[in-house]
């Protein structure tokens, strides 16, 4: 039986549905629009490359025609295609995050976590397309600035080759949007088990549409932190710390899950319901990281770039492995048992820690960075628990704390950046200092803006579900379904 109108009680939801529908209608609207205009304008803006036309030497002639040298042609091809492959690996990380979060939470919140992960990617793609990308890469006019906007990606003619960068705009967007989605999805784990679905969608839109791109611009878009000489190769700070601190803000404003601390305030563990999913997720993330870090080299053509790209993969691997071992060892000594969840978080900690500096540290430093990250994640988890902040998957220790560590470690261990003349921009102390304050600025930005966002959601009652809904589980109360109906149900009988 289908019902077209919602009960008044559900107004916040219907709000949201409205907005969603706008998107949908927008879609239909645009379609008609573009149909109308299809014949003429489109054919102009969009040139279809017919595969057959491209065989033999045609390609090169074509290139020559377009005033592209053979070398540029070679580099453009390699850079674009490898960047695309790396983007696919980073997008695969979405599956990893989903599995980790699902595995480390109660079964009664599984559907909700999965819905959050699928939707924050989809919503993120749209909003980064419409707003975020333009905010993050406003172009050279805004060099050294704090804020800029170069118009929406969706309106751009992304078809012409971008010979300035040396790779296609489409590949660039794919790679960038995958990073944005990563930052967004980190938060999902920290707020699991008690946050309203609608609230999460709103948060996720704000982060991928505004917060992340703006601070991203400061560094990668050529903003003031880039000018200051701040180094964050693949985003320990720009991506992971932003996600981690946003998650911290959420966890703090939400408060712990019911039953997480008992009457006497004693911490009561709420073990995840499926460690296999969690471990699978970590393996997937590990693999995806080879798109995240090596891919951030951005240009891969030529022996020097290929060299660098794979060297980055090496340091990334070493740090992850060291993080895993040290986290397990630490947990083993402290708790008396080799805690798998700590080993898993240790892998991620090591990977996050090396992300900012994988291009500029030597192998020993990579091991050291991972080892320290492994230590941090365990102690951080204990600390968080002591101060009664409930972060179900340890998103803050992993991405927040180790993201900061990555930023600092770049200063401690990293080759000092040079100016075009090749002279060092700083002495060691100066480098450490710029890394430290730049990291701080970005973390403060993410934390404070997100405090506001979550605060507003709280104020309008769209942050946390009711105690009854939470106890019943978000799956049934928010989504009306169980993740794993028992045989009794799955046997075919729901009344």
């Amino acid at each position, binding site marked *: 039986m289908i019902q077209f109108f919602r009960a008044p009680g559900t107004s916040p939801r219907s709000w949201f549905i409205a907005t969603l529908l706008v998107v949908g209608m927008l879609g239909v609207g645009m379609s008609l629009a573009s149909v109308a205009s299809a014949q003429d304008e489109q054919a102009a803006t969009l040139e279809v490359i017919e595969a057959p036309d491209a065989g033999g030497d045609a390609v090169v002639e074509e290139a020559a025609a377009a005033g592209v040298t053979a070398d540029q042609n070679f580099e453009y091809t390699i850079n674009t295609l490898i960047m695309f492959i790396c983007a696919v690996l980073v997008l695969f990380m979405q599956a990893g995050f989903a599995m980790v979060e699902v595995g480390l939470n109660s079964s009664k919140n599984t559907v909700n976590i999965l819905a959050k992960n699928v939707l924050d990617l989809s919503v993120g793609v749209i909003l980064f397309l419409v707003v975020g990308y333009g905010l993050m890469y406003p172009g050279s006019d805004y060099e050294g600035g704090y804020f800029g906007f170069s118009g929406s990606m969706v309106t751009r003619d992304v078809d012409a080759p971008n010979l300035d960068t040396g790779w296609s705009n489409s590949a660039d967007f794919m790679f960038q949007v995958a990073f944005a989605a990563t930052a967004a999805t980190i938060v999902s784990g920290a707020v699991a088990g008690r946050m309203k679905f609608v609230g999460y969608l709103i948060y996720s839109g704000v982060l991928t549409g505004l917060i992340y791109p703006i601070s991203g611009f400061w560094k990668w878009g050529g903003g003031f932190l880039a000018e200051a000489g701040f180094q964050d190769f693949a985003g320990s700070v720009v991506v992971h710390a932003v996600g981690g601190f946003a998650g911290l803000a959420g966890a703090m404003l939400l408060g712990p899950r019911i039953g997480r601390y008992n009457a006497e305030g004693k911490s009561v563990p709420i073990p995840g319901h499926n460690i296999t999913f969690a471990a699978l997720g970590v393996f997937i993330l590990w693999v995806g990281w080879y798109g995240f870090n090596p891919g951030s080299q951005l240009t891969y053509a030529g022996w020097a770039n290929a060299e660098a790209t794979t060297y980055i993969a090496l340091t990334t691997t070493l740090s992850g492995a060291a993080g895993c071992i040290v986290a397990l060892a630490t947990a083993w000594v402290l708790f008396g048992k080799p805690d798998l969840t700590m080993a898993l978080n240790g892998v991620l900690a090591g990977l996050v820690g090396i992300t900012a500096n994988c291009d500029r540290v030597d192998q020993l430093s990579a091991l050291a960075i991972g080892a320290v990250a492994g230590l941090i994640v365990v102690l951080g988890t204990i600390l968080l628990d002591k101060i009664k902040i409930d972060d179900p998957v340890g998103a803050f220790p992993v991405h927040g704390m180790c993201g900061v560590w990555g930023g600092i470690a770049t200063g401690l261990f990293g080759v000092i950046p040079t100016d075009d003349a090749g002279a060092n921009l700083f002495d060691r102390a100066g480098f450490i200092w710029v890394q430290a304050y730049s990291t701080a600025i970005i973390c403060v930005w993410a934390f404070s803006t997100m405090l506001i966002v979550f605060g507003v959601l709280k104020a309008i009652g769209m942050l946390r579900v009711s105690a009854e809904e939470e106890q019943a589980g978000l799956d049934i109360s928010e989504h009306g379904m169980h993740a794993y109906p*028992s*045989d*009794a149900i*799955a*046997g*075919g*009988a*729901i*009344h």
Partner: protein
Amino acid sequence: MKLIIAIIQPAKLEAVKEALTQVEVYRLTVMDCQGFGRQKGQTGVHRGHEFGVNLLRKVQLQIAVNEQFVQPTIDAILAGGRSGESGEIGDGKIFVLPMDDCIRIRTGERGSEAI
């Protein structure tokens, strides 16, 4: 007061619940279980070992009722739980156990009105 325990085919739960609703038995507890009965188990195989998987998936219902509801409840389970007219091996069993007392946790009420 009696506690009625019924072991039925998983696929019959729906029908049994509907039948129970007819006789105004609304409250029950359900569990997954596995049963060995006269029903021939399918032959299973694992790494080349045939073995009788006479462990079959069943569903157990536990229903606490007052005397006057015992017979209607049993009839409802029979009506909903039997496969076809004649029934099939594997349809299961109903056990009726005496029950001394029943307490509703919410209110602490005792006895028949708590059921």
